């Protein structure tokens, strides 16, 4: 870097037209940086704008990350007089080190981020703590921001209060919206807003009553609502008394003995909570599939009900020839309360349809009627039910079988096979076979459709899908055989 001639070593003085004269700062900083002026030698002052520079503007190009422009537009609103010099220094440093802003631990970057945060916070607090008072249909507010944020922040109020006419006054600038246009004017003082407002009393009533004296946390309040804002918040005047009275109010609640029930309580109880007590149906007395379903809704035979949404009971034709038995409801079945409606259910539906089986003529259920899962963030990971849970739930399956009286049961997967046969089998070895139970029920064994979905390779998945379709075609043949044989018997 070449040294500047001694003549220029005296401080450069730049005049900006106002505290947030971003364009003025940008023009000057660009020229100074291009001329190689040391940022430490520049004196930034506010006042009238620069007289036109007699010297020609230096030529050349400055490149900065896009982020710097947004950052500097925010930081320039800060009240620290050093902001112009700091931004200028960072602009200069960026020419040699374009990645500077990504180095979050750099001292200048740390300071810029602090200032950015402080301005953002002030913007946020202005949005929170401006309080309008109404004068007829007109609304006026007085606010004292910590930084020069009025110009930057008023669009928010336009977006929010388009249908009102309003003015926000601050010590250095005022902003007015007449329903069509936003205009800025000079600063004002607190006395320029009306001293009263009709709704303020209601607001104070609300503030007093929403406060819970049993949970006093003054520091938490002050961290978010620092005292510097209090003088313009009507509700803040209540704070000292609320704090002072809190202990007594809380102690009073603790001391008061519980009273007798209110007079109307008895009437309410009588009118709403005395059911014609038929009592729950006895589990042994279920006279129909519908009874059984109702009973199952409150099943607590194993602990799985605790985490699941609801019992997912079987569904379909009450005297179907074939009953499909899956493992357990999954995420979507648990939410919908119906079996086989999730992804595996769709594979099941598509496949049996292709095989020519009409689902509405079958009965579809699961070996276990509650969803077993482990929560993982926003998802639920399916967990295989254990033997104890399968056994506990078998009670329901046995009763479904005894009401529906199917001639064929299809065990979809190992859990269904375990429940139907009372012993575990290796499904991959026995798939496609029909096993006859002691009670005469024939059980067709195959995989669970979710098995297909878990195969990562598309070709293998397709192959497994066709095998499942083959199985369902066999089931279709079995149903057809039963149909032609048994209908004559009946």
């Amino acid at each position, binding site marked *: 870097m070449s040294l500047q001639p001694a003549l220029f070593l005296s401080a450069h003085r730049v005049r900006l037209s106002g505290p947030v004269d971003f364009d003025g700062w940008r023009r000057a900083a660009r020229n100074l940086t291009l001329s190689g002026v040391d940022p430490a030698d520049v004196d930034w002052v506010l006042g009238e704008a620069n007289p036109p520079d007699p010297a020609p503007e230096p030529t050349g190009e400055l490149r900065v990350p896009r982020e710097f422009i947004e950052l500097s537009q925010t930081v320039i609103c800060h009240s620290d007089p050093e902001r112009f010099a700091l931004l200028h220094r960072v602009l200069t440093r960026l020419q040699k080190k374009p990645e500077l802003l990504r180095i*979050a631990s750099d001292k200048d970057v*740390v300071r810029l981020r602090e200032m950015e945060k402080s301005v953002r916070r002030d913007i946020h607090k202005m949005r929170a703590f401006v309080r309008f008072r109404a004068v007829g249909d007109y609304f006026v507010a007085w606010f004292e921001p910590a930084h020069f944020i009025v110009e930057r922040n008023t669009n928010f109020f336009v977006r929010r209060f388009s249908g009102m006419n309003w003015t926000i006054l601050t010590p250095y600038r005022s902003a007015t919206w007449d329903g069509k246009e936003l205009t800025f004017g000079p600063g004002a003082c607190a006395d320029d807003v009306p001293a009263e407002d009709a709704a303020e009393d209601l607001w104070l009533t609300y503030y007093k009553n929403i406060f819970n004296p049993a949970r006093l946390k003054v520091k*938490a309040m002050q961290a978010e*609502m620092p005292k510097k804002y209090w003088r313009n918040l009507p509700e803040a005047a209540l704070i000292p008394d609320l704090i002072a009275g809190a202990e007594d109010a809380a102690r009073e609640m603790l001391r008061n003995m519980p009273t007798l029930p209110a007079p109307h309580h008895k009437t309410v109880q009588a009118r709403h909570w005395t059911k014609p007590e038929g009592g729950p149906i006895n589990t042994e007395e279920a006279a129909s599939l519908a009874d059984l379903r109702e009973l199952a809704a409150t099943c607590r035979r194993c602990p799985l009900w605790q985490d699941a949404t609801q019992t997912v009971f079987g569904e379909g034709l009450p005297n179907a020839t074939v009953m499909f038995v899956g493992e357990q409801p999954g995420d979507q079945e648990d*939410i919908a309360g119906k079996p086989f409606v999730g992804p595996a259910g769709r594979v099941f539906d598509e496949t049996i349809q292709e095989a020519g089986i009409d689902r509405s003529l079958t009965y579809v259920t699961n070996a276990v009627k509650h969803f077993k899962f482990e929560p993982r963030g926003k998802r639920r990971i399916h967990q295989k039910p254990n033997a104890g849970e399968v056994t506990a739930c078998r009670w329901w399956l046995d009763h479904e079988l005894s009401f529906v009286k199917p001639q064929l049961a299809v065990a979809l997967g190992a859990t269904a096979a375990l429940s139907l046969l009372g012993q575990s089998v290796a499904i991959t070895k026995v798939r496609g076979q029909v096993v006859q139970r002691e009670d005469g029920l024939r059980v067709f064994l195959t995989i669970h459709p979710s098995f297909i979905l878990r195969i990562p390779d598309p070709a293998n998945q397709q192959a497994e899908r066709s095998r499942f379709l083959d199985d369902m075609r066999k089931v279709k043949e079995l149903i057809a055989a039963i149909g032609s044989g048994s209908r004559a018997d009946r």
Partner: protein
Amino acid sequence: MAILSIRDKLAILSDAAKYDASCASSGAEKRDSRKTGGIGSTEGMGICHSYAPDGRCISLLKVLLTNFCIYDCSYCINRSSSNVKRARFSVDEIVSLTMSFYKRNYIEGLFLSSGVIRAPDETMAEMVEVARRLRVDEKFGGYIHLKTIPECSQDLIDQAGLYADRLSINVELPTDDSVQRLAPQKRPETIRQSMAKLRLRMEEKSEPTIQTKRKQRFAPGGQSTQMIIGADTATDDTILRTSARLYGSYQLRRVYYSAFSPIPDSSAALPLIKPPLMREHRLYQADWLMRFYGFEQKEILQASPNGMLDLSLDPKLAWALANRSTFPVNVNTASREILLRVPGLGTKAVSRILQTRRHQTLRLDDVARLCGSIAKVRPFIVTADWSPGGTLDSERLREKLTPAPKQLWLF
């Protein structure tokens, strides 16, 4: 009965609403009143317009439509056996109160809940009517949160979802057994099914319709719930387990924990206690670990013999002290997942570390500038110029990192 003024009603019905901790006004879609010429906007992040001395933010006008209630939940100030004063707002009154507060920039919107009068549908219909009046007649673009009554009809839920930003149903207590004991008329299974229905509707409506190719509106701010802690004997482990289940099952935006607080005219069924505020705070921290820090629910309390969070340490620090073999972690090489486990490093600090170390090797000073308190972080990390050496194994580490007990407020 004497006729109550608006002011009297507001006093009664806001007092009755304050035990619901939910205050969020975030998550709504972007709305801007310039297009409608009305009043009100939402821009993603909600704004807290004030704070009460209980440290809670005041963002919404949180009131009940009425505190008459046919339920008799022993922890609730509005239970039917309570001798609290009763009042009821008309739809007009709530609408005008909301508009009048909103225009003065006191609030972000309305959080309307209600005691159940006569039948769930009747009460819910009035709440929906308030929301409809605000949206349609007043062209109100602010936030609306409706507490949903679990037993109401699907049709009313659909209308509520059309006008409201957020819907919520309270699970009330951490376990079904506690609900049955303390709120005998509430049915936990109905509450679950109602949350399931809300999730289902939100998923259905998030798909564009075939005809209009546009999404139908349904509660864009999602659903949330609240449970009261300290009114029953559930441990923190049980509570967090319930939360993890709720987040996983119903896609909740938030689970709120509300420390059981003494109420005027309390029921004999419950102990009179100070609200367990620190416990509530620790539960929120643990909740954050599950949602933003990649912790599994089971990990958080694995070191605790009684299933309770340590009240003197934040749960992440407690976990780190119980799992010292994971540390020290080299901030210049460790993955995001591991960095998020370091006590004292928040999600922002971790992002900054990851960003900065692409350009330069981090020293202890650098890390100090990126996090809140280097004293807490130091024992668990290695930097270019720092290694904790034996301090990590020191038995006194816990003592050193435990904040000095603060003077508590006299009660």
